[in-house]
Structure formats: C-alpha cells, structure tokens
C-alpha cells in the first residue's frame, strides 16, 4: 500500500528530474557543449549520489514545517505539488519544486488543523531570496574573475573549448550532486515520517538507513524524469529563457552548484560549525531561482542590457503564485481524498490539559493562569487550542506552539525488539541503546514523558537553552533521534 501512495512522490520526482535537470545542464546541452545522453548520465549518477549521501539535511527543515503523519496525507501533498508544477510549467513559467512542496505542506497544515511553524517557514522563504541574491553575487564575482583570466590565458579557441567542456562535466556533476542533496527532500521528504523502510546493515561496515532507501527510490524517479522529459525542458531553459555562451554557461552553472551545495551539505555545515563560523540553514532551495539569479548576476556584470526583464517578472510572479496555488490544490485534494475516497490523510491527534500536562507546562516556565480557558479540557485540533489561547496576549505564537506540543497525546510503548528488527538501532550510541532497553515495555501518554525518562542518560539530554551553534546542532541531531523513537514506539490505539 505504501508503494501505491509513494507513486505521487515519484510523480513529483519525475517532474523534478524533467524540470530541474534542465536548470543544470540546459545551457551546456543547448550550446552543444555536452550531448544530451552524456548530460543525462552524469545527472542520473550524481543526483542519486547526492540524494542518498547528503539528502537528510534539508529534509529535516521540511519536517519541522509540517510533519505529514498519514500516508494518504503524504500522497495528497506530493500529488498537489506535482499537479501544481505540471500546471504552471504548461503555462510556460519555470516553477520551483521547493516552493510548491512547501505550499502543499501548508495546505495540509490548514486542512488538518495544525499550526504552521512560522519560524521554519521564514527560514525557508528567506532562504529562497538569499539563494537568488547569493547565486547572482557568486556568478558576478566568478564572471569578473574569469574575464581577465580568459583574456590573459591566450589559450587557443579550440583548447578553451576542451577546457570548458570538461569543466562543464565536472561542475555539472557537482551541481547534480548538490541538486540531489538539496531537492530530494522535496520529492520524498513528506514520506519520511511514514516510511516503512528498515535500516539495512551491509556487512557491519555501511548502514543504509530506511530514509536513505526512500531517497534512493526518489532519486530513481528523478532519473526517469531526466531520461524521459528533461531533453525538452533543457531546450526551453537553454534557449528560450536566456542565451548563454559556453563560458558564461559554465559560470552560471558553477554559481548554481555552489549555492545548492551551501544549502544542502551537512559536511559543510559541520565544518563551519567546527570552525565557529556562522552556518547556512539546510533548506531545499529552488534550482530555477538559483540559475535565474546566476544569469541576472552575469547580465548585470555585462551592463544589464541583455537581461530579459519580462521573463524575470514572470518568474517573480511564480514565486508567489506557486506556493499559494499548491496550498489551495493540496487543501482541495485532501478534502476530496478524505471525504470521497474515505482515506485517512492525517493521524487523529488529541490534546489534553489535565493535571499532568499542566504541571509540565508550568515546569517549562509558563504562567499556567493563562491556561484557565483550556484547563481540564481536551481538544482534537491545534487550531482550536490556538484560538482559545489567543485570548491571552501575553503568549507569543511560539509559546502557544510549545504549549500545544506539551498537551499532545502521543501514546507510546517502548519496544526495544522493534527498534532492533527495523535496523534503526544503528543510529544510537551504546549508552543510548542501554537506556532504551531499560525502559522496555514502558507506556507513555506524551512524548515529553518518554523524553524525560530517556534524559536520565546524559547522552539523551537536550541543551536547555542552546546558545552556541554547536549546542543548537547537538539538539537538532538528538531531536532527530527522538523523532525516530516517537515514530517507532507509537501505539496504534491512541485513546485511553
């Protein structure tokens, strides 16, 4: 059943393969520097590698935006995004996969009564603008660097052609790797919370996690998209949208690859962290916006006369139209799938403000007198609680989100054997595993209860108020592990 539901994700992967590969190799293929077959092969290999090896980072950010917790929901969200892309591409506007999937997730949040985490949304949305500006800046910088170099090198036109050709292959491979790492989250990210794949242990040396297997499947759908449809899109991107010479195409592609890598690489993130430098959020950015940013950067460096502002305006409109349309389609489809096909698109989640949860909320430092309107009541939608809490102006939206999470009923039963059978135990340290085993068979009503019990082992302890990037990163990684446990130990029966 999971694989049927995954089809919409694979459809989305296909459209990403067709659409975004054009952004990488479009100019190279259109200037005939690379043959389509070669470009497709490089893209297929490196997008798959990027997706499987480094796809985890951006996916986490999407997960924080909205954790689609039912297969039917994930199916519909991915379908809505894929339909939006198909629709907008048919109108002739290059569209961003990242924006449509974010719009579709927000549509799910709206439909299921969940609150959208504005902080994650702002991180994602601002990264789109930053990615556009950054790629333009990098492209302009590379252009100014390349110009005197090319003039001074006095390499023969034919030799220059050979160098550019090989550089396009290398940079294209890097771009494809970065695209796979950055955008795989868009394709199958919504399926991560509901994935049935077990971790695979290959001879004790390499562990391929369930998520990586899911990414591999997503990457294969991208590959199908590359081989079946990207040739046409490459032509559109490389010829109609803007005309680049091989050298400027190489510059634009380099800028695109760098930006995609910056927003995708966990390795780079960790390196910056270890050097005490500011980190770049791991967010799925739009390869369309990034390549357009690069072209605008080059265009401005050449005096700005050759930029086709009408196309730029159309793309800018799509920045707003794509997520809004995706949210609307997602909402409508969810309604249809749930009510017409009677398919579960969300887990029924209940929230209770009983003695235990109120005490916990007080322990977290909140003034419980602000909870008078909800005290002793139970809810079945985040939004209902939000409306009640809104009466108290002293609570910020972030506070309310935290209070809601503490009141959420998420019945769990620690099942150490299940963790081992699914192969997920490889993600935990020996001390952490020992602690989980000690709690075997324990039943909990709230996530925070299990978390509190686990935290008696130091390696399960979150930093209270993380100040440094190191601490924030530690918390993020540990939270990822806790989420694995919350999903693995979730009881089917959620009512008492």
């Amino acid at each position, binding site marked *: 059943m999971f694989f049927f539901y995954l089809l919409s994700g694979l459809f989305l992967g296909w459209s990403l393969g067709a659409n975004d590969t054009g952004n990488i190799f479009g100019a190279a293929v259109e200037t005939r520097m690379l043959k389509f077959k070669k470009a497709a092969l490089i893209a297929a290999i490196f997008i798959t590698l990027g997706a499987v090896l480094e796809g985890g980072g951006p996916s986490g950010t999407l997960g924080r935006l909205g954790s689609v917790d039912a297969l039917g929901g994930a199916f519909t969200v991915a379908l809505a995004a894929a339909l939006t892309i198909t629709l907008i591409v048919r109108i002739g506007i290059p569209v961003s996969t990242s924006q449509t999937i974010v719009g579709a997730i927000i549509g799910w949040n709206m439909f299921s009564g969940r609150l959208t985490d504005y902080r994650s949304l702002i991180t994602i949305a601002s990264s789109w603008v930053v990615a556009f500006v950054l790629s333009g800046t990098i492209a302009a910088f590379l*252009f100014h660097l390349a110009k005197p170099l090319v003039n001074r090198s006095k390499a023969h*036109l*034919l030799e220059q052609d050979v160098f550019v050709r090989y550089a396009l292959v290398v940079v294209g491979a890097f771009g494809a790797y970065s695209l796979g790492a950055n955008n795989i989250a868009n394709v199958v990210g919504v399926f991560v919370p509901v994935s049935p794949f077990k971790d695979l242990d290959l001879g004790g040396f390499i562990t391929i996690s369930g998520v990586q297997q899911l990414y591999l499947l997503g990457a294969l759908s991208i590959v199908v998209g590359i081989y079946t449809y990207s040739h046409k899109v490459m032509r559109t991107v490389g010829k109609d949208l803007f005309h680049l010479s091989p050298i400027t195409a190489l510059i634009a592609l380099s800028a695109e690859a760098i930006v995609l890598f910056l927003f995708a690489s966990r390795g780079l993130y960790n390196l910056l962290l270890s050097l005490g430098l500011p980190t770049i959020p791991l967010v799925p950015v739009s390869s369309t916006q990034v390549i357009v940013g690069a072209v605008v950067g080059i265009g401005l460096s050449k005096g700005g006369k050759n930029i086709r502002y009408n196309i730029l305006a159309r793309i800018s409109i799509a920045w707003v139209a794509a997520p809004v349309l995706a949210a609307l389609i997602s909402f409508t489809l969810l309604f249809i799938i749930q009510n017409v096909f009677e398919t579960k698109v969300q887990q029924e989640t209940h929230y209770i403000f009983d003695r235990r949860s109120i005490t916990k909320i007080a322990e977290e430092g909140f003034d419980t007198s602000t909870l008078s309107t909800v005290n002793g009541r139970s809810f079945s939608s985040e939004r209902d609680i939000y409306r009640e809490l809104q009466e108290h102006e002293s609570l910020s939206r972030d506070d309310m989100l935290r209070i809601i999470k503490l009141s959420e009923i998420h019945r769990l039963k620690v099942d150490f054997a299940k963790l081992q059978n699914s192969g997920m135990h490889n993600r935990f340290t020996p001390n952490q595993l020992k602690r989980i085993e000690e709690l075997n068979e324990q039943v909990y009503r709230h996530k925070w209860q299990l978390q509190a019990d686990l935290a008696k082992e130091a390696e399960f302890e979150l930093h209270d108020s993380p100040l440094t990037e190191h601490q924030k990163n530690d918390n993020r990684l540990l939270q990822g592990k806790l989420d694995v446990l919350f999903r693995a130990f979730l009881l089917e029966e959620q009512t008492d």
Partner: protein
Amino acid sequence: MALLLKTTRFVESQIDTFLDIVSDSATTFQLAVEDYLEGRIEQFEERLAQIREFEHRADDLRVSIERFLYERTLIPENRGDVLAILENTDEVIDNIKDSLLQFSIELPQIPTELNDLWMQTTRASVAAVEQLVFAVRSFFRDLAAVNNYIHKVHFFEREADHIGERLRRLIFGMDIELSRKSQLRFFAIHIEKISDAAQNVCDRLSIYTIKRQL
C-alpha cells in the same frame, strides 16, 4: 592533458598551416607582380603555379578542418563563425590566383612609368592580407589584439584604394589607346580587390570577436 588535446592540437596546426598558406600566397603574389613588371615571365609563371598549388592545399585544409569541427562537435558555439572566416579567407587566395591568372592569359603591356604605383598598390594590398592573417590568428588566441589588426587591415585597404585611384588616373592620363587603358584599369582594380576581400573578412571578424567576448 596532452591526450585530451590531441585532436584539438591537430586541428589547431591545420588552421595555422592554412593561415601560413594565405600569408605565403600574398607574399608570392607580390614577388610575382614584381617579376611580371621586370619582364621575368618564366619566373612569374612559376609563381603562378606555386599559388595554384597553395590554393589547392588551402581548399583541402579548409574541408579537412570543417569535417573535424563537425565530426568531433568542436567549438559548437563558434563553429559557424570559424568556418565563415576560413571560407572568406580562402576567397582571398582565389582572388590572388585569379589576378595572376589574368596576367598570364592576357599578358598586358604595362608602361614602365606605372611600375612604381603598380608596386605600391600591390604592396598595400599584400600588407592588408598579412594583417588579416594576424587578425585571424589573434581571433583564435588573443581576442584583445584582433581589433588592432583589423584597424591595420582597414588602413592598408584605404591605402590600396587611394594609390589605386592615382594609378587609374595616371593610366587614363596617358597617351595610349582607350582599349589598353581599359585593360590596365581592369588589372589595377583586380589588385585593389584583394585588399577589399581582406576587408570583407575583417568586417565579419569584428562581429565574431564581439560575439566571443565575455
């Protein structure tokens, strides 16, 4: 790296050889005109035969370069431009050969008082072709220098026109038959046309240079 550039280097050497032939043709043309004016007809015919040989070799090289560029999809973005440059440059050799061939066929009687201006026109036209060869070589290796050479081609073309005009005025001011004046004018114009052909290549070259600039 050498392996990667093997085909490239081969085509590069072919292009260089082609341009060497153009340059040699121009120099041989000047020597041939000198021989003709000095009455060394046998030597003149040898030079004509040499230029015919140059023309054949240039044609073969051009076709070979063309085939390589298309078969190996080399410089796809500039291929059309490069081939146009080579074809137009090849026409300069054709002009040179045609001019000498007409001398060989018609054997015009050139009054000795015209020799100096005749040689000046020839030298200006040959200089235009030599500068053209520099311009084309720079197009491949040193884009910034192309315009300098193009400027010089224009200069020598104007010079050839200017001296050519003086030569024609002198011809028509002479006390000889009109048919002979007409024949000499035809030969003078033929020499000027060589520099015109060089200028035509340069006009294209300057556009291709703009296209290639980053």
